[in-house]
């Protein structure tokens, strides 16, 4: 899976969680939650979806490491199988 593929998958997932937002307009360094207005509940749903889609485990203490699209893409890329 390329970084771009992961990024597109992430954007799609964000759009599903928060349909009235525009994830496509996120800059790599934007704080995702702040930019899209995603609260802790939505964020939890997002993490659940990520873990299911990519088959990864995201512990709570890692939440701080994945605040931007850039960070998130790299985080998932490092863990996703294949």
């Amino acid at each position, binding site marked *: 899976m390329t970084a771009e593929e992961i990024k597109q998958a992430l954007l799609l997932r964000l*759009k599903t969680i928060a*349909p009235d937002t525009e994830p496509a307009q996120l800059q790599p360094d934007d704080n995702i939650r702040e930019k899209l207005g995603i609260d802790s*509940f939505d964020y939890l749903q997002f*993490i659940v979806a990520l873990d299911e889609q990519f088959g990864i485990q995201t512990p709570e203490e890692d939440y701080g490491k994945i605040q931007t699209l850039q960070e998130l893409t790299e985080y998932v890329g490092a863990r996703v199988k294949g």
Partner: protein
Amino acid sequence: MLEYRMPSLGADMESGFLREWHVKPGDKIKKGDIIAEVETQKGIIDIEVFDDGTIGELLVQVDEKVPVGTLMAMIIPPGEDGEIKETPQKSAAPATTPTAAEEAWIATEPPPMAEKAAAAEHHVRASPLAKRIAEEKGIDIATIHGTGPEGAIIREDVEHAITARVAPVPEAPKEAAPAPPPASPPAPVAAEKPAPPAQAPAAPAEEEKARQATGASAETIRMAVAAAMSKSNREIPHYYLETRIDMRRAMAWLAETNKQRPVKERLLPAVLLLKAVAKALNEVPDLNAWWENGLQRKPAINIGYVVALRTGGIMVPAIHDADNKSLDELMQTLNDLIPRARALRLRSSELADSTITVTSLGEGGVETVFGVIYPPQVALVGFGGITDQPWTENGMLDVRPVLTATLAADHRATDGSTGSRFLTAIKNYLQQPEKL
């Protein structure tokens, strides 16, 4: 025969549009079944029944505007079957509030279909002028309350109905029920976002679609909130109390608990707060109440939880029997309620049953919430964000995660000492998270 009337889905609701019947005459129903969808300012609401039985007659047509309290359907209680088969066409009858005479024919020998329809039509007592204006304006005369001679609908009534339709002015219905409350400002991001999901990376915009489908717009939701809050500020003498709560134990317990759980079963701090509120209400029941001609304590603790919509406005679904739910059950309830609230797909009981409101604004970065009570409730609990702050305990200075909890309460209903006991109880429960 039991009567099923349009429920009030909030103090700000005057009427709703029937959009779909989920039942037809002859269908067996159980208490809690969804029998219809009604569109309100807050979206399409699934309407539940309160009785077991068999649907006898549907008295309101799809897409009719139905004022709160209007007779919508007749329900035959269990063991009183039979009539249905003889009058299978009754659903064609126009929406009228049946008089004694009409009920009589429902209950006795059913006359032939045509006569019945005519009879029902004649039960709308309205002046010819009122009927003409209503027809011109596309208003169903049967939905209008008459104030003329012998209760007839006159021009003035129709004109009021037209005015009300253009600019809904909420009154305080006697059986007012809560729905959207207070304090929460709309989610901060909403305004900047251009609406149409132009080059969205696919994914159907469920929320947006739902709104378009229901007709509930950011504007109508805004108006509903505005009406309820104006009424609150006008009528309720608020008092405010505030306390700071050390959340170290609670947060540590939560982190430890979540670490052992798959991501799907993780808990959010909100469920701890909700459970603490529920338990504190058991100790201070005067705050779990409505103010309607005096304080009316409510037996069930149904916490209205404020969900901010990104496009502005709020929805406040009720978490039923919060004190009897475990933390996991509370989390499951939130998982169910919040997406439906955002999609404007709540059930009538979820909009109407709240006995207190909780609003949690910490994620926006604020520390303290000064809430506006949602009438006819008598209290609103506000939680700010959990932030690291200096904290003294036993003469020692430390840094702790601190939460500011506030209470906005109705001074007609309770006094400061009551509110103080309540906030203190919340604080104490949050010191023992494992027991929540």
